[in-house]
């Protein structure tokens, strides 16, 4: 059937999960084969070797392409493998411009791996479009942004960035991990490449690692596919299956997590022990109006907040929660808590961390599916345990 008219959740369940014709199985089988028997020497079937393509992975890629309003998708063994494949499109002498509020692992890839290839990298606060415009160079090939940003939850105008990038002959790549396609679909706003850590909301259960790229232009897909097939960082069939299974409840999870996060942000904003709350759903957030336009019906399940107290108070706080578990990663059914200065953004140089506003008292939470009242109670008791609240 024509699936283009169907709504998001219906497509998440059905696109890429077509009935298995031989048995009628309602869930497609997991194809674990590494290789495929060919019709003849020099005559190739649809699949030849699992690095080059796998039916289980193809099913997931079809779902991802549909959910991100793209035409083609590629699934990788991790989010970093997906970003790395994008950077492999660049050559020595090219320039890559990235936002300042980005994942620590991306920062490390750009500054400590990509620099070795002779690609120039510079960072710019992507929320300031004038600065972004000024930072373009004739050799800029790629503008890379996240929205909401990590960990400061800055909101970047994806449509405006796409226009700027295209005017300067560059691609716009968006790491859409924090928003998920439930809330933001960058390709609809003009982006060229959407990237995901499937590990987070899309997989959603903290039980797999994966990455994805989604594009609209066939030519860009062909280039990225060439890189993936040549370098081999493909997603395993088992993890492709678990990701497909996770996608079926993606919209329910993200909408529930967004609702809970907004309530928790409102609660935290009223607490004397909280210096400031960084959540785009709060009217006081500098990106609130843009987020209300760019994100559809929710502001996501991620937020950061600064405690009144330094490194030690934050450390004690994150170690005192009972439902929130102390771990990096995000986007799953279990709520997580971490201290960016010590954990997710420890790979930033201390000077860059300070310059980008990642302070010692900053705490980042990923709101899971638990009842929001239970999560609120947990944060309050952790503040009491850390001596922050009475």
């Amino acid at each position: 059937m024509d699936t283009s008219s169907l709504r998001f959740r219906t497509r998440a369940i059905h696109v890429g999960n077509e009935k298995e014709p031989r048995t009628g199985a309602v869930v497609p089988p997991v194809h674990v084969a590494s290789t495929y028997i060919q019709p003849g020497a020099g005559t190739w079937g649809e699949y030849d070797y699992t690095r080059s393509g796998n039916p289980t992975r193809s099913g997931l890629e079809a779902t991802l392409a549909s959910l991100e309003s793209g035409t083609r998708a590629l699934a990788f063994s991790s989010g970093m493998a997906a970003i790395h494949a994008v950077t492999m499109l660049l050559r020595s002498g090219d320039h890559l411009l990235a936002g300042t509020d980005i994942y620590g692992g991306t920062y490390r890839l750009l500054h400590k791996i990509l620099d070795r290839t002779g690609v120039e990298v510079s960072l710019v606060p992507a929320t300031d479009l004038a600065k972004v415009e000024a930072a373009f160079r004739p050799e800029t090939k790629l503008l890379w942004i996240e929205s909401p940003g990590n960990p400061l939850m800055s909101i970047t105008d994806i449509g405006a960035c796409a226009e700027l990038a295209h005017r300067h002959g560059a691609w716009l790549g968006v790491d859409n991990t924090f928003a998920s396609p439930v809330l933001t679909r960058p390709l609809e706003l003009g982006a060229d490449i959407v990237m995901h850590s499937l590990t987070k909301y899309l997989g959603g259960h903290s039980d797999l690692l994966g990455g994805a790229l989604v594009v609209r232009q066939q030519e860009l897909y062909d280039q990225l596919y060439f890189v993936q097939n040549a370098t081999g960082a493909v997603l395993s069939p088992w993890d492709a299956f678990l990701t497909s299974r996770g996608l079926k409840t993606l919209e329910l999870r993200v909408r529930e997590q967004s609702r809970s996060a907004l309530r928790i942000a409102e609660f935290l904003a009223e607490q004397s022990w909280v210096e400031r709350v960084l959540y785009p759903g709060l009217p006081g957030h500098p990106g609130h109006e843009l987020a209300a336009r760019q994100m559809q019906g929710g502001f996501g399940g991620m937020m950061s907040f600064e405690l009144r107290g330094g490194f030690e108070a934050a450390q004690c706080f994150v170690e005192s929660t009972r439902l929130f578990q102390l771990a990096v990663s995000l986007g799953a059914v279990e709520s997580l808590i971490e201290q960016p200065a010590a954990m997710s953004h420890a790979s930033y140089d201390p000077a860059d961390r300070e310059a980008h506003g990642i302070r010692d008292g900053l705490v980042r939470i990923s709101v899971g599916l638990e009842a929001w009242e239970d999560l609120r109670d947990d944060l309050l008791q952790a503040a009491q345990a850390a001596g922050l609240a009475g």
Partner: protein
Amino acid sequence: MQLTSRETAAKPLGISTVTVHAGEDRQKPGNSITDPIFCSATYTFPNTQSVIDFIEQKQPREEYGRYGNPGEKVVEKKLAALDGGESALLFSSGMAAIVGLLMAKLNAGDEVIFFDECYHRSREFCTKHLSRFGVTTHQVPAGDYEAMEAAITPATRLLVSESPTNPHLSVVDLERFADLGRRHDVETLIDATLATPYNVQPLTEGVDYVLHSATKYLAGHNDLLAGAIISTAEKLEPVRKLRGIMGAVNSPHNLYLLERGLKTFELRMQRQNENGIKIARFLEQHPRVEQVYYPGLESHRDHEVARRTMRGFGGLITFLVKDADWRQTGAIVDAVRIPRIGPSLGGVESLIEQPLVMSYYECTPEERKSFGIPDNMIRLACGIENPEDLVADIEQALESASL
């Protein structure tokens, strides 16, 4: 902290808080956030003395996969917490669970009474197989409590019903059912597969055993089979022992998928209930529909009981097509595009079937009549797709198939 029930906390925890965390150690092997899958068939002892300690002192630990598995214990604790019970016992399928319970609890000369609208394979096991072991099964019309009471004899050991029933969606007054058993000192069993612990809590109404085909809403993704019984530890002990002998245990891989499915259980049930009532209301007003069986509708025979005892009414809807023979009814089933034709229910994907063809094809028309299965009956098991898409699809199917 390990959550073992909703009530042990200072105040009752939310359903999702329970399904995400209950039964899990906060700090797990390897410090992983999710439970590892223990594929081990057997478990080793450091020395002979530790084997003797295990046997003599009954130190709780694993021994052999047929007797239990660490991942299975986590899921059992989640299911017990969800149903407000003390203990849960998992099986390789819903049928393995009911067979395990019946075989553990009944002896030659005992009698069982069923409300008649129940899963035909459960009935078949009783009438064709339990009878071979000298157990007598009586069936009384669903919802006829007087008939059930009248059928009780000193040999009666168990009263059994589904609620809601399949495919007529009759709803049992659980308090009344439990009370009937208590007054006659007979144990009661409710198969609550269609209701789930989200919509009813039979144990708190006084029922002794709750049974689920966990294949359905609990796992929720149409990708595993499992069965479960929830009750007190004491009542389940002989069933657990017999399971260890009969061996109808689930696989560690399946149980992990079940555990994973439970984490989104509340969200899925909210959507299932929403889809159920929206589609039932749509069908009820459609000129090509003769009758809709859905306990959330005012027109349903048991609506009052359902409204009083259920939080929501689930995703299963049965309806009759107006002035259609069995082939014309089949044409409507064939015309839908989103639900797929197949047995089962409770997964994220919608499924549709014509009971005459799917489950009762080999019965005579007289038998089908006695089971209440008319030729023009369709059973729709909603998934969690957007209700607007499902309504539009069913509407086009009803209108495209020419009657």
